[in-house]
């Protein structure tokens, strides 16, 4: 199963009005890949992720998921999204539910699992992210880092084939970044296919096996972390990285 293409993006473009955010993106994700997408703000990283999840409708181009065009897949966008997990910068936990309910509702309502089975699965992943003690808390009662760990557990409980992370640590206080990154590190070690938009260069370098540098809506460079960080091929990549390292 390894090295099988799980996501394939062909000639993807996205415009908001006259502003073209993504320009003819070609991009594939193989099973087990941990891909980091880096780049300055406004370079189209998040939009790419949101197009892959169909939260944004691409203007043109096509996306294949396990060989099927996602726009013509059985069950429509909802069924597709159930297979592709997403973790947001702003957590987006359901405020009207407890931590446990957050991780159960998708399984019972979307995957039609039984309540008991769903709760067992939820507990498994909540334990994995270290949030098992907090299952009775509401999202407003826990910290940002804890929210994000619950959000990861919620996504994992759906048993996704690929998990997308949209700047998962950007809204966190510095001391909470570590706990989220360490959970993500564990997931990468477990062999989960991950696509991570991030500003955490250390994470991109140490955890991912592939780094994509985006600039002005195009993929500027796409290489292994060793190559990209120690020997960037293009001037712009070098410039971006040096700006980042100075901070």
């Amino acid at each position: 199963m390894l090295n099988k293409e799980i996501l394939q993006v062909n000639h993807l473009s996205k415009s908001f009005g006259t502003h073209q955010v993504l320009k003819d993106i070609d991009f594939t994700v193989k099973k087990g890949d941990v891909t980091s997408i880096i780049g300055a703000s406004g370079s189209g990283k998040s939009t790419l992720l949101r197009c892959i999840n169909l939260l944004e409708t691409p203007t043109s181009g096509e996306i294949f998921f396990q060989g099927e065009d996602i726009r013509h897949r059985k069950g429509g966008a909802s069924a597709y999204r159930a297979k592709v997990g997403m973790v947001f910068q702003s957590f987006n936990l359901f405020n009207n539910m407890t931590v446990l309910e957050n991780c159960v509702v998708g399984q019972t309502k979307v995957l039609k699992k039984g309540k008991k089975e769903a709760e067992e699965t939820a507990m498994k992943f909540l334990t994995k992210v270290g949030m098992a003690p907090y299952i009775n808390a509401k999202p407003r009662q826990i910290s940002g880092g804890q929210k994000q760990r619950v959000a990861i557990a919620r996504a994992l409980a759906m048993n996704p084939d690929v998990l997308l992370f949209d700047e998962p640590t950007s809204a966190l206080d510095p001391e909470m970044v570590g706990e989220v990154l360490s959970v993500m590190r564990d997931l990468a070690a477990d062999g989960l296919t991950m696509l991570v938009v991030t500003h955490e260069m250390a994470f991109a370098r140490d955890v991912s096996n592939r780094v994509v540098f985006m600039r002005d809506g195009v993929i500027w460079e796409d290489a292994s972390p060793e190559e990209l960080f120690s020997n960037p091929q293009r001037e712009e990549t070098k410039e971006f990285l040096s700006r980042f390292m100075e901070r």
Partner: protein
Amino acid sequence: MDKLTQLGSDMVTLWSKYHDMYLDGIANTLILAVVATAIGCLIGFVCGILQTIPYTKSDSVFKRFFLKLIRVLVRVYVEVFRGTPMILQAVFIFFGLPYFTDNALQFTNMWTVSILVVSINTGAYMAESVRGGIISVDPGQTEGAKAIGMNHFQTMLYVILPQALRNILPQIGNNFIINIKDTSVMFIIGFTEFFATHKAVVGASYRYFPSAAIEMIGYLTMTLLASFILRYIEKKMDGSSSYDLAQADALTMAGGTYNHPNRGTPFDERNPEGVKSMLREELRRQAEMEEARQKGRQVEAHQGRHQSTTDSRGE
């Protein structure tokens, strides 16, 4: 003062004679207000959901046309029933049905027509409230729900509407209180609610003002009770501000197992023997210090005499 006593005795007379009628009126008013507010909320929620079904340019022409048509229809409904007096709506519907069916169809049950009129009137207001409530929920909630594969209906039912409901609960309370009062216009089609009772009592007794005073007190009691109950429901919905840890986490576990380094030593405050011995120790130390100070003073005074004859500190 005389007048007040007069009013009091008149009210007592009226109440003792007609209290069954008044209580019936109150019961009818409350039942109508509760049922119509509930149905009105339901109408409002349905309209709110229908109005917020999203569509994009890539959707089929038929779907887009259908959704636009729904929005227009809801819009018309809201504007018509929000923009005309309920008393007129009651008359319009009550007499409209037999008019259009040449008396083949008539409202024979006052409850049916009253509930119908008040419900659709409330629904028109609630449709707007619900729409506002849905808009006020963070768009991230919708994205979170979509991201785990929920469709529009599931997203609404499990995530958005529970939060919207909490947000618009004060509005629902408003509508409920307005309905308690405004169902009084249903007397126009012969529904015997609380205000209709007043008219009946006055017709028999000719005591206009005392009966009106009873009505005032009655309505105010109902509305005060309603707002009290609504506040209570709001509080209930917000839930407890604390939560229980399902199991102790690693750090709180340490709380009970930690030993203070002074435990069992004379410095352990929980050890009475230790405290006593510590006190004895402390007293002895103070006595020693006092002794040393006395000695020091003597030495100092002794030296002082040698150094300066104007030293006034000596005893």
